[in-house]
């Protein structure tokens, strides 16, 4: 069930100062990389068939943040994406819509029009995505612009340079400022797990993001070589589970980038199911940041419905 974030919780005094925050983050239990990856791989051997597979595919479709983040994006492209998000399968109207479309701030208005009247949300990247290398004022202006255009959700990037230099409070305060500028829009905080590099860092970033008020923690921008993996997502799901146990606050998780096949998506849902639990099996609390994944999900859905392997001619180019 969704919970609202109270201003004070069990861990409130952790963020009293830079040094208390550092001590807290560095005091979190370590992560054994081999063990973590083995657990993720083992969950990947679950065999999800028939009714379970149908459930997982529909759930996955409903969790997709259908994404276009290209320099070449035009209103035409974004309209096409929006239409697809609302009605993904031209051959089968029973397919769920996706959770959201995800675009750059200057495309938000077009996206809003394209999904108007549907349940599909508009998420906007912001804060000088993907690198996040700009002054705070610029990053906040980016956010306000997206919110003014009607964005329901903001996907921000943290300052990885500050994080890796150990300036945790700076990272924290930026997230707090962006949350404020987001107003009613839900805030997803992107860590860029590939750049943070170690699992210990990803665990620390997760707690840092949640302490700062993130509604979602998100793995990556999709713009670097290594994005979401079963292991880093497993780690983040452990973090949201433990955070809720300690504070009562539920935070969502969004793996993004590198999830291309239904098989991949189902593996992630198994990880959600057996780590954080069924409360997160809902698009209010779990999303896939993906583009080509949707067509593979639709083809798998068609196979389950018709018994025949499908092909690219039976799903749309968006």
């Amino acid at each position, binding site marked *: 069930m969704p919970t609202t974030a109270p201003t004070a919780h069990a861990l409130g005094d952790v963020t009293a100062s830079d040094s208390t925050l550092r001590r807290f983050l560095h005091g979190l*239990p370590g992560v*054994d990389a081999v*063990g973590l990856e083995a*657990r993720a791989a083992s969950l990947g051997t679950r*065999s*999800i068939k028939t009714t*379970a597979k149908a459930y997982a595919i529909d759930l996955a479709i409903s969790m997709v943040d259908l994404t276009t983040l290209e320099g070449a994006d035009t209103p035409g492209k974004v309209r096409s994406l929006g239409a697809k998000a609302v009605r993904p399968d031209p051959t089968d109207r029973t397919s769920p819509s996706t959770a959201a479309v995800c675009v750059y701030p200057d495309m938000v208005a077009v996206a809003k029009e394209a999904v108007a009247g549907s349940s599909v949300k508009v998420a906007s990247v912001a804060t000088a995505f993907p690198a996040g290398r700009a002054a705070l004022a610029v990053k906040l202006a980016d956010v306000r612009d997206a919110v003014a255009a009607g964005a329901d959700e903001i996907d921000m990037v943290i300052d990885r340079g500050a994080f890796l230099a150990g300036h945790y409070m700076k990272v924290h305060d930026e997230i707090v400022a962006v949350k404020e500028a987001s107003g009613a829009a839900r805030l997803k905080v992107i860590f860029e797990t590939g750049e943070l590099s170690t699992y210990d860092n990803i665990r620390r970033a997760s707690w840092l993001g949640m302490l700062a008020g993130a509604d979602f923690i998100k793995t990556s921008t999709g713009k670097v070589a290594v994005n979401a993996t079963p292991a880093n997502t497993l780690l983040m799901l452990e973090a949201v589970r433990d955070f809720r146990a300690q504070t009562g606050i539920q935070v969502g998780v969004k793996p993004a980038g590198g999830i291309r096949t239904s098989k991949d998506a189902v593996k992630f849902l198994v990880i959600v199911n*057996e780590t954080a639990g*069924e409360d997160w099996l809902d698009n209010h609390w779990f999303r896939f940041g993906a583009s080509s994944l949707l067509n593979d999900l639709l083809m798998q859905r068609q196979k389950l419905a018709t018994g025949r392997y499908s092909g690219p001619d039976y799903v749309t180019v968006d």
Partner: protein
Amino acid sequence: MASAFDYAPAPESRSVVDIAPSYGLFIDGEFTEAADGKVFKTVSPSTEEVLSEIAQAGEADVDRAVKAARKAFEKWSALPGSERAKYLFRIARIIQERSRELAVLETLDNGKPIKETRDADLPLVAAHFFYYAGWADKLDHAGFGANPRPLGVAGQVIPWNFPLLMLAWKIAPALATGNTVVLKPAETTPLSALFFADICRQAGLPKGVVNILPGYGDTGAALVAHPDVDKVAFTGSTAVGKAIARQMAGTTKKVTLELGGKGANIVFDDAPIDQAVEGIVTGIFFNQGQVCCAGSRLLVQESIQDELLDSLKRRLSTLRLGDPLDKNTDIGAINSAEQLSRITTLVEQGEAEGAERWSPACELPSSGYWFAPTLFTNVTQAHTIARDEIFGPVLSVLTFRTPEEAVAKANNSQYGLSAGIWTEKGSRILAVASKLRAGVIWSNTFNKFDPTSPFGGYKESGFGREGGRHGLEAYLAPSSPEGER
């Protein structure tokens, strides 16, 4: 377990394996009936269905098998090592090819989940044959002298918990070093050994080099007592191991024993908690805890006991118990009614002695032999369940305050097979490992096996090592001037 995402049944098909209604003994390259015609039945422990009727070897059969092995030994030991190697490589490749079939067979006969036979047992079986195949022509480099010689005929008795893997651990090094073997599989799991005999046939292995004698404890006793057996290798209970050790006294037979254990899994306050929980679960619930090196005692630092147990209990509630052939099953059946009875008795003892028992909600199937994963807290060294090997999915949780106390409690056992150490601090791993009296120590992991890695125990867990270069030692004699035994 989440009900929103209900995993539908995902059964592995039985049709990949063809189990005949009956099997004979495998002696001198052929399947034959027992001399006295005796047979016994082997049963699937998850359903109690009879799988097949098996010939039961008696003393006369043991004698005939040993003679066949002796006869084959002359040629086999005289073959260049590179030729023996090629036979073993063939066997390894055929095992790989037939892995799916063998995994289903092993799951049916033993009761363990298909996920384990497919992902753990079978790959290790093939790897063992590959590894020892490569030693057959390199014995000069093994560190046992210039021209180490085989011992002769090996009598090998294996248990039911990892039937084909225990067969691989015994047969691969024995054959690589030039010995021939007579092997007795456990009475509740004879099938994979008999299929292995068929693989020997496919590989063109000369007859008599491998002989398989299904039977009960008396068959095993006759085999190890046979005067023309040069080497005895036994994996099984400590009680039987001691009996064999007594029997070997005064003979010239070389013996190795791999017996029971009561492994301590030590979790320090700075352990990587989530991975430690996985390690604890693997340690005691892998193979339904029917593992000699199981981490059956959890020694948790008292300061983190509550937190760890909360995480552990939460994790146990996602374990799936049921049909071993379902690919999503984590916990399969207990191997036999006898074993189930032993577990039940010890668990009742635990309760009677005041330990606190807990299991996750778990529906047990109506037929077959099943035991729910079980946790006992408030256990101390004085409890029976902290001392006796249960050989089932039952974890005893004890606490400690300091590293010295952890080591003292871990070592306070007649056993000494395995231990686990969970901490982020490397120097603590090495300090504690150096003090533990155990033959296999896992740090920040558990139940990891590899053909290159020696395995075996201290104290009453047995003696001798299987695996690695060390595993050759048991099957070799130093070279003699005459070059013969």
